[in-house]
């Protein structure tokens, strides 16, 4: 329900632009992306960074409305940073690192997400999804490789061994087009998924949350607050997040005996939120801007590659994850970061077709991990039975005085997924006392880039850009590969001048990666470690490189 056009109406709307196919031109796209939500846009921008062009087919003519997926994770920021588009979101979004939970009027938990001097990005930012989408649309419009086709809807598609044919409806008629690959990023009610006769598998939960944006001037800092059974809304759970522009996100649970229709009535929403604001001492006038209803689903397709291997699924079209712990949109962005380089590698010939199978393998695994974590949060946030409700009550009541019970309340915010059995990884053969094992994402910490007489502070993360990277401790090495590879040497200052690209001036790289002279990490373009060795061996690195790219 969009109440506050006065606030969110500033976003641009886009007109239909007549594509060449409508005038009879036959076009074969490398990639057609169905859906210009954040997942499809991130994928398109990722592909464009590799020089791969695509068309995005989108029925709407503007970004979506309201805060929706308001919490953006560090992992998502890293992916956008690699594509050079994290800036606007970081500038506008509100960073936060922790929060508090209350049982009735007692504080029962303070939690903190990992944050220290090593980090380049905050663990989480709050930013209404409409802003996020607009920044991505702006970036997509600035990329000549991307054709953003608004007011266009896929009405049929047919996969063949050599590509996909699509029929697209527009305000000026229908046209046919072709693509080497189609990626379905068309959301929870994915047309592509239905057209292929595919079904999401898993569970849905009955518990409902009403979610709302309100405009409220408040001095309260940016943190996640949760109230269980608060005096203002007995029997309910209320969540609050600060967002930019004095907009607050309020989520509250509807009890099973409450009627969803009646509860979405504006006056009723105002009454419940008003009672809550009064309870927490907010005295200023406030305005209701947007209201929606939410139900938790734990669903995924069993595979994300279909249609002769030509149709791939990402984001909500592929999996639905409960809101609690903010794995919904963030897991979709992770899908796009995983798929962009793989599609580019396949289309440009530096990676094998197996990369696209690995996308399905890895991201289905990630969906199961995300669902397992989010399911635990869901059992706590919307207890599905009397037994779960009782045990939640017991845990909250104990947590007032007993520290051991507090982890039961922890909201389990999303963290980067580790792939313990990726087909692209080469297992460790050395014994390591730490660092990042194959399948994990590269940790980050401050290092210095050395360029002649100039030295600049950078991050370990920054050493991996769009190409695969070999991070070598000690002097530079030569590695022969059949494809792109950035070889980056990290020195500890003991080397002769200019013998290393990077100076580990605080020893953080060595500590975070358990690195010694001769150690080498082979890292994928999405930041996941593919292999590592204690001693450099060019042949072993080259073999792991071929495996990483399914060559």
């Amino acid at each position: 329900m969009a109440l506050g056009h006065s606030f969110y109406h500033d976003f641009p709307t886009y007109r239909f632009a007549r594509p060449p196919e409508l005038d009879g031109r036959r076009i074969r796209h490398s990639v057609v992306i169905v859906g210009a939500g954040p997942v499809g846009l991130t994928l398109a921008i990722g592909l464009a960074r590799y020089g791969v062009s695509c068309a995005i087919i989108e029925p709407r003519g503007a970004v979506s409305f309201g805060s929706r997926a308001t919490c953006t994770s560090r992992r998502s920021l890293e992916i956008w940073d690699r594509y050079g588009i994290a800036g606007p979101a970081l500038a506008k979004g509100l960073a936060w690192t922790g929060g508090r939970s209350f049982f009735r009027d007692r504080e029962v938990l303070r939690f903190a997400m990992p944050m220290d001097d090593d980090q380049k990005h905050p663990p989480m930012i709050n930013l209404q999804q409409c802003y996020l989408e607009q920044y991505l649309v702006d970036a997509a419009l600035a990329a000549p490789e991307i054709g953003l086709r608004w007011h266009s809807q896929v009405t049929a598609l047919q996969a063949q061994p050599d590509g996909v044919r699509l029929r697209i409806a527009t305000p000026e008629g229908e046209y046919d087009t072709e693509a080497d690959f189609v990626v379905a990023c068309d959301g929870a009610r994915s047309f592509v998924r239905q057209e292929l006769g595919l079904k999401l598998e898993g569970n849905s939960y009955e518990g409902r949350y009403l979610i709302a944006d309100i405009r409220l001037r408040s001095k309260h800092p940016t943190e996640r607050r949760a109230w269980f059974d608060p005096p203002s809304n007995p029997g309910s759970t209320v969540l609050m997040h600060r967002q930019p522009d004095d907009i607050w996100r309020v989520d509250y649970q509807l009890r099973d005996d409450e009627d969803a229709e009646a509860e979405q009535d504006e006056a009723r929403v105002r009454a419940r939120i008003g009672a809550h604001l009064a309870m927490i001492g907010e005295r200023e006038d406030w305005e209701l801007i947007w209201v929606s209803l939410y139900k938790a689903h734990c669903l995924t397709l069993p595979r994300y590659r279909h249609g002769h291997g030509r149709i791939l699924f990402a984001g909500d079209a592929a999996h639905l994850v409960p809101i609690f712990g903010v794995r919904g949109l963030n897991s979709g962005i992770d899908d796009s970061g995983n798929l962009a380089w793989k599609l580019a590698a396949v289309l440009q010939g530096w990676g094998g077709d197996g990369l696209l199978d690995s996308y399905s393998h890895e991201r289905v695994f990630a969906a199961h991990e995300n669902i397992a974590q989010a399911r635990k949060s869901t059992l706590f946030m919307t207890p599905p039975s009397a037994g779960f409700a009782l045990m939640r009550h017991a845990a909250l009541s104990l947590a007032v005085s007993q520290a051991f019970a507090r982890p039961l309340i922890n909201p389990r915010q999303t963290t980067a997924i580790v792939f313990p059995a990726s087909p692209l990884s080469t297992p460790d053969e050395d014994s390591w006392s730490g660092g990042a094992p194959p399948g994990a994402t590269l940790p980050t910490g401050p290092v210095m880039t050395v360029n002649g007489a100039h030295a600049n502070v950078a991050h370990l993360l920054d050493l991996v850009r769009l190409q695969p990277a070999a991070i070598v401790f000690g002097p530079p090495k030569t590695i022969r590969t059949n494809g792109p590879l950035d070889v980056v040497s990290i020195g500890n200052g003991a080397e002769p001048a200019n013998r290393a690209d990077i100076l580990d001036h605080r020893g953080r790289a060595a500590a975070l990666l358990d690195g010694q002279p001769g150690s080498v990490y082979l890292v994928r373009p999405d930041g996941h470690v593919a292999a590592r060795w204690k001693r450099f061996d060019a042949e072993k690195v080259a073999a792991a490189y071929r495996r990483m790219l399914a060559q």
Partner: protein
Amino acid sequence: MGLPTDDLEAFWEALAAATDAAGDRDKVFLAKLALLMADQIADRARIAELIEIAQADL
């Protein structure tokens, strides 16, 4: 192993009295106590066994 009979009896009585004292919060009181005891036992397999034993012959 286990509590001496006197001690077990004393606990049995104390628990009955505390359950009564909890009134309509008796269930949550017992659930809290179960969580506290599970934390003290600190043995995942053992507490799973105890749940199973308690489920029998209700």
